[in-house]
């Protein structure tokens, strides 16, 4: 460290003190405390939905805490907005880059802060000079005339970082910066970050990849369910310790059940599928789910679960392999046809896909079943029958509501999810694809939904359960398949389902 930094106030450059943020009944951040020391890399580690994104939004002025304060240079600060946070030197590199295609890297670097000559024209020479200064400072070399869209993804990320420095930021918040990078590019990024840190800048590194965190961080804070589980110097941390803190303890270990497993219902063979951007997200994946069996899919978010779900629901691209439901090849069928054969799908995104919040509760409860013979004849809806059916159905699932004709948005999150579960288990499907079935649901709702899934299994239904909650997977699944990097990295039976073992597989460790 240079002398300047040992002389200057060595205290906290950026931190949080008792930061609490609620969204309705959901507590996204629950009195979060952490201190990022000046000139260090501070990692914030946590699983999906742990509250990292909310905290980051608060730290860069996009959102304000309900309680607690952000600390800047050790003193409590209220940001007026992102520009205010930036004026205090805090900048963020988002997961989705904010560069403009059609402009060169140099133009992107100086965008909105262009050096100009006396006539107000952009001074390209001066801009290039600034760019070269940054190159010397950081030890990277870039082709500045390259159009943004032709630059490789890691170069674009470097430009994002340099842009913040060019504009004067000395605190860099990086949200999952390695998610889009190849291993060699990751080490390049790490070298850059170390260099910046040694220059005296403070870096907040958000990730759930423990190897990287341990390699780069000086301090580590682990959060789970919106709370800080612990903060420690990296020297005192280990991968196992962090994994345990991230994932948590299992409250009660359910006993191994000897269910009667029947015929295979869902058979996935050598499935290769692409994500929305066209990259292969799932490779050569095979799995069978039999009647009377719950098979869980574990994995850190973004390791192929989305591609698996979209292949099964006929929205994603399938490059190879087959999907069979009850012996019928459905690989090229629409979701409507698959549903007709017995597939049922509980969406992970309740607000956008699982329900139509603007439509009445009643319509949400019958969508997809609305052409069934007991509800509809010759294209005309049987209103009385529907009313009766929906009332009975929602009573069975204890949905608290005042009227079925109110929009679904009038229900609480837990009751909304009950409506979705009720609909998807209605009409005796043969296989339920349940994605994050209890996301954003309170504890009582979780227990109820879990019981619904178990009852369905006991009635002879097949369930494919995709969840980021390991506790949920272990509580429900008869078998758990683990995805890592788009491939199956292991499978465990419920008898031998140990959190450490699954955790290792989730993080790419060898099948132990």
């Amino acid at each position, binding site marked *: 460290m240079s002398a300047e930094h040992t002389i200057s106030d060595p205290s906290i450059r950026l931190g949080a003190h008792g930061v609490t943020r609620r969204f309705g009944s959901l507590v996204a951040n629950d009195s979060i405390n952490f201190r990022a020391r000046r000139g260090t890399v501070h990692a914030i580690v946590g699983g999906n939905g742990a509250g990292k994104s909310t905290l980051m939004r608060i730290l860069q002025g996009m959102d304000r805490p309900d309680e607690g304060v952000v600390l800047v240079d050790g003193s409590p600060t209220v940001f007026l907005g992102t520009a205010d946070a930036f004026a205090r030197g805090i900048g963020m590199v988002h997961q989705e880059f904010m560069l403009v295609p059609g402009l060169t890297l140099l133009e992107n670097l100086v965008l909105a802060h262009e050096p100009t000559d006396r006539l107000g024209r952009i001074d390209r020479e001066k801009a290039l000079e600034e760019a070269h200064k940054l190159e010397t400072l950081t030890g990277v070399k870039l082709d500045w005339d390259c159009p943004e869209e032709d630059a490789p993804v890691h170069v674009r990320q470097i430009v994002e970082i340099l842009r913040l420095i060019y504009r004067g930021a000395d605190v860099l918040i990086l949200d999952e910066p390695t998610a889009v990078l190849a291993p060699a590019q990751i080490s390049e990024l790490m070298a850059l970050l170390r260099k910046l840190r040694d220059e005296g800048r403070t870096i907040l590194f958000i990730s759930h990849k423990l190897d990287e965190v341990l390699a780069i961080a000086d301090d580590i804070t682990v959060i789970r369910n919106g709370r800080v589980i612990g903060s420690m110097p990296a020297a005192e941390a280990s991968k196992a310790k962090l994994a345990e803190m991230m994932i948590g303890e299992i409250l009660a270990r359910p006993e191994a059940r000897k269910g009667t497993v029947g015929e295979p219902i869902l058979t996935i063979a050598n499935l290769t599928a692409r994500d929305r951007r066209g990259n292969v997200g799932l490779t050569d994946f095979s799995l069978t789910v039999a009647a009377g069996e719950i098979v869980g899919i574990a994995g850190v978010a973004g390791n192929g679960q989305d591609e698996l779900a979209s292949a099964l629901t006929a929205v994603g691209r399938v490059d190879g392999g087959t999907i069979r439901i009850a012996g019928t090849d459905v690989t090229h069928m629409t979701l409507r046809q698959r549903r007709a054969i017995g597939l049922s799908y509980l969406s992970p995104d309740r607000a956008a896909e699982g329900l139509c919040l*603007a*439509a009445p509760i009643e319509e949400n409860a019958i969508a997809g079943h609305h052409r069934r013979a007991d509800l509809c004849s010759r*294209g005309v809806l049987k209103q009385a029958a529907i009313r009766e059916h929906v009332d009975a159905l929602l009573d069975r699932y204890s949905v*608290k509501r005042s009227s079925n004709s109110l929009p679904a948005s009038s*229900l609480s999150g837990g009751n909304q999810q009950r409506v979705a579960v009720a609909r998807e288990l209605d009409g005796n499907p043969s296989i339920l694809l349940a994605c994050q079935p209890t996301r954003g*649901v309170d504890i009582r709702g979780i227990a109820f939904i879990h019981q619904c899934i178990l009852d369905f299994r006991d009635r002879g239904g097949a369930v494919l359960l995709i969840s980021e909650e390991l506790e949920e997977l272990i509580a429900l699944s008869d078998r758990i398949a683990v995805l890592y990097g788009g491939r199956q990295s292991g499978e465990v039976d419920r008898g031998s389902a140990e959190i450490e073992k699954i955790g290792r597989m989730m993080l790419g460790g060898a099948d132990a």
Partner: protein
Amino acid sequence: MSDTTAIPGNSMQMRWKGATEVIAPLALALAVAAVLLLLAGHNPVEVYRLLAIESLGSVKRVAATLAAATPLILTGLATAIAFRAGAFNVGVEGCVFVGGLAAAYVGFTYIGLPSVFLISLAVLASVIAGALWMLVPGVLKARLNVDEVVTTLMLNFVAISLTAYLVNGPLLAPGSANSATPMVAETARLPRLLPPSTLNLGFIIAVLLLVLYWLWDKRTALGFETRIAGLNSRFATSSGIDVPMLIIKMMLLSGAIGGLAGGIHALGTVGRFVSGFSPGYGFTGIAVALLGRGSAVGIFLAAILFGALATSGATIQLFSDVPIEIVSILQGMVMIFAVARFGWIFTKRRGAR
């Protein structure tokens, strides 16, 4: 987690909210226009009284208002059906033109047919022409996600220019100097309900279609699917509804009704197709659909309102020194305040992608 179940009385509140959203644009428009009238030295109360009398003051005036509302009911309905499916169709104007020309063509060509057949055939031609006009934008949106606002808006200009070319060339009435087709046969004219008013059978057809629309929306599986797809297409897709196919169907239906509006206007009111056939019925239809919030009753009332403004505007000048422009201002104001909802629908539309 506390259960934030809806409090009883919520549905009353929502109904009230719905009513204000319909009435507010009109009230606001009247208020703003009143200020303008005062500035111009007129008594707004007196002007509004005159407008009311001229549009609704006698059987004759009511008939004129309903006649003026007829094409607006149909174009409003055509627009609303596409909106229901989540397609922002602004191309109904073009459908009015092609539908009007198709009906007029049949009406002056197959003059030997008995009246019932001739009218049916002419109406059918207008429906088919309108539907086909929306085929390409519908398919482009559904299959390639091409923005329907752009394609349908552009097709309006194509329709207007194409029909103008046809009535200036191949279909120009012999011996006629102005750009118009020959008159349709008397047997092709829609029967009038209250002669000498131009109110005709078309009004009955339009109201019947509104009733059918109401039933379709409330009672049929297809209406249900359309509404769900328009509100949340991802949800509809995951429920097994074929949203792209639905969009194509609804765009065709929207075009068919737009074409019908043109056909009825040609056979019922004008008696032929002339260049500049529609004074923007398709565009006023957008305001009607928005002001009426897509409901059958709302569309009916909004169409009557715009019809009343159009008829009273034409005669108010005769009985007062109020300039006709004040009616245009009123119409414009109602549209602006009605379309203030447009922003909301537009963001929702973008957000849904």
